[in-house]
């Protein structure tokens, strides 16, 4: 009887595993695999046919779209870095410097923007940063400038503002979780051993919070890298990230080119994750013991 129960439990465990695995395979791996295969196919009229050609990759790497990939990487890295610089102090104070109930309330406040449609939130920046918007009016009223500042909107600045405001809140939560779970006795021990606050932060707090940094960087970088709405709304004359140029290729049914560009994006992200994994232990993010490899 006991053996039977054990067997049933074992089967149930596998069944539980099989379902999510099948879902991941069906919803993620199969489409990604098809995308990769199609990137080598050739166009046939308005559709595609099996072949093995690198034409789409050649078109991508030889054309102007490569500059879009470069820009996407630079923007994603920049937004992630700036987002981290903003999110870390916020998470730090919420986790270590303010009362828990207050921290919870502030964290709740950071979710409020998500109650508003993402596109509407982005459009609100257009109003705020436009030539006749409140920011320019305030600058002119304060005598900072005589005429409206053009670069506030439809510029790199506007794209960074839009992306940071969109993705920075996502970065705060993992950072807060990592810092909040930090063993305070280690910090106290550092003080007792005579380390200054700066040294304690650099040698104790920061390394122990790296799992949170890891997750925050993933959230910031991946989200920004695949972004397409913010550049269109805030970016000015033809500001494109990879999402935009892939959509553009799809507009003329150039599926192999779109698949090739998407494959390059996925490969770039995988490379990024691999490098990140070599620096950090992925298990740390999954709730296991954090281990800073350097």
């Amino acid at each position, binding site marked *: 009887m006991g053996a039977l129960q054990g067997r049933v439990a074992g089967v149930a465990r596998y069944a539980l595993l099989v379902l999510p695995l099948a879902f991941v395979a069906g919803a993620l791996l199969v489409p990604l695999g098809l995308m990769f295969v199609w990137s080598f196919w050739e166009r046939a*009229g*308005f*559709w595609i046919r099996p072949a093995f050609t690198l034409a789409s990759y050649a078109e991508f790497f030889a*054309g*102007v*779209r490569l*500059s*879009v990939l470069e820009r996407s990487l630079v923007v994603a890295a920049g937004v992630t870095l700036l987002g981290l610089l903003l999110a870390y102090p916020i998470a730090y104070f919420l986790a270590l410097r303010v009362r828990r109930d207050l921290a919870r309330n502030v964290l709740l406040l950071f979710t409020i923007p998500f109650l508003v449609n993402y596109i509407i939130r982005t*459009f609100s920046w*257009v*109003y705020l940063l*436009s*030539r*006749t*918007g409140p920011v320019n009016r305030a600058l002119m009223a304060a005598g900072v400038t005589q005429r409206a500042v*053009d670069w506030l*909107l*439809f510029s790199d600045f506007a794209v960074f503002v839009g992306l940071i405001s969109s993705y920075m809140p996502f970065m705060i939560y993992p950072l807060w979780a990592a810092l909040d779970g930090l063993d305070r006795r280690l910090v106290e021990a550092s003080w007792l051993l005579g380390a200054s606050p700066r040294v304690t932060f650099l040698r104790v707090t920061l390394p122990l919070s790296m799992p949170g940094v890891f997750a925050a960087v993933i959230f910031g970088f991946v989200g920004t890298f695949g972004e397409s709405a913010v550049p*269109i*709304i805030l970016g*000015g*004359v*033809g*500001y*494109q990230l990879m999402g935009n*140029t892939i959509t*553009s*290729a*799809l*507009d*003329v*049914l*150039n599926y192999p080119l779109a698949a090739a560009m998407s494959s390059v994006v996925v490969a770039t992200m995988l490379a990024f994750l691999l490098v990140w994994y070599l620096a950090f232990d992925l298990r740390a993010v999954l709730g296991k013991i954090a281990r800073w490899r350097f």
Partner: protein
Amino acid sequence: MENDGTDSPGVSRREFLERLAAGGAGLAVAGGLARPGAPAWAAKGSVTLADVGVGDPGGDWSKFSGPTGWDVKLVAMGNAPSGVLNVLIAGGGTQIYDVVNIVGGMQKPLVENNLIEPIDTARVPNWGKDTYIREFLAPGKPGFDFIGYKGNVYGVPTVLQGDSFAYLPEKTGPLDSYGALFDPKWKGFVALEDNFTTTGQKTALYLQKNRLASIKDPANMTPAEIKTVIDFLIAKKKAGQFRVIWSSFEQSVNLLTSREVYVMDCWEPMVFVAKKKGVSAVYAAPKEGYLLWAMAAYIVRNPKRSKEQEKAAYELLDFMLGGWYGAKITLSRGYMTNPAAVAYAKSNPGEFGPAEAQEIAAIDANVRKKFQFGGTWQNRWPTHVETYESEWARFKAA
């Protein structure tokens, strides 16, 4: 009865959707949300119309449902060529939709993918009465490319319009040339549409008419001609001429109403909205002519469609060429529809007040004037469409 596996055995996708809709209608009635005067369920079934947001007469299809016994199920659809094709090919749209009402000129990809049926105009009584079709869209005229392909008619023209650009006369004074989009006087205060078949073609028209470049046909440029146009736009972009390229209706209206830009390549309805918001925007009458286009309602190819369903689809096409529908769409969208619209609005004061009838007549006359003046017919699928797209990408990346 076909079963495509989307639901329980013996129930087709169409029936499945109809049952869902019926359930929704039931809930709406229960909740007091049912449209006054609309039948809760038409006796014969429904015709599914996929539309890009222009062809909805305010949700009121009673003038079609009453005489025919068929209801209309309106489904939203994107207008981008890839979106249309993807929905019909990969999204199973041929099994779901009876009619798609999109900006025309898509016959080549739609016909070559077996996605639409040729239209037997003899089954559309209003077809022969429509003088706009004879005048602007008949075989042999450039406008035929918006509804026909290889001599056959595939689309019923539901809306006609001529596009140019908008400007704020308070800032610029009167403007009458696309040259305003490229005039250094308005440097940094110009917006373009993010669309290579509209902006590219208008620029080509400007360059051609002003003898600034050798372009044979702005509607179907050679790769070299496209490159010339894009080089011109890139030079202007680098000089700081353009503030932004817009990609949504709301975005472009906002650019005008906030006076972020003074001159904008856009559609006329944006000017209507801006005016309603108190901004005295003007839609230009450029000396180079207009970018002319038409919306086409296509019958989606579905060999399993019943004869009754097909008849209903034809009846809907005929209804869309009728006076009431035309007047409704002209009034709500600002586009010309069919010659019967003006007369219907005028002779039915119970349905359209004198001011509305006057507005419909004014819009109709305005658009008709544009067509008589001429310009270039928008080409949604030019021969070298991929070059258009890649060159447009070059402009955006420059």
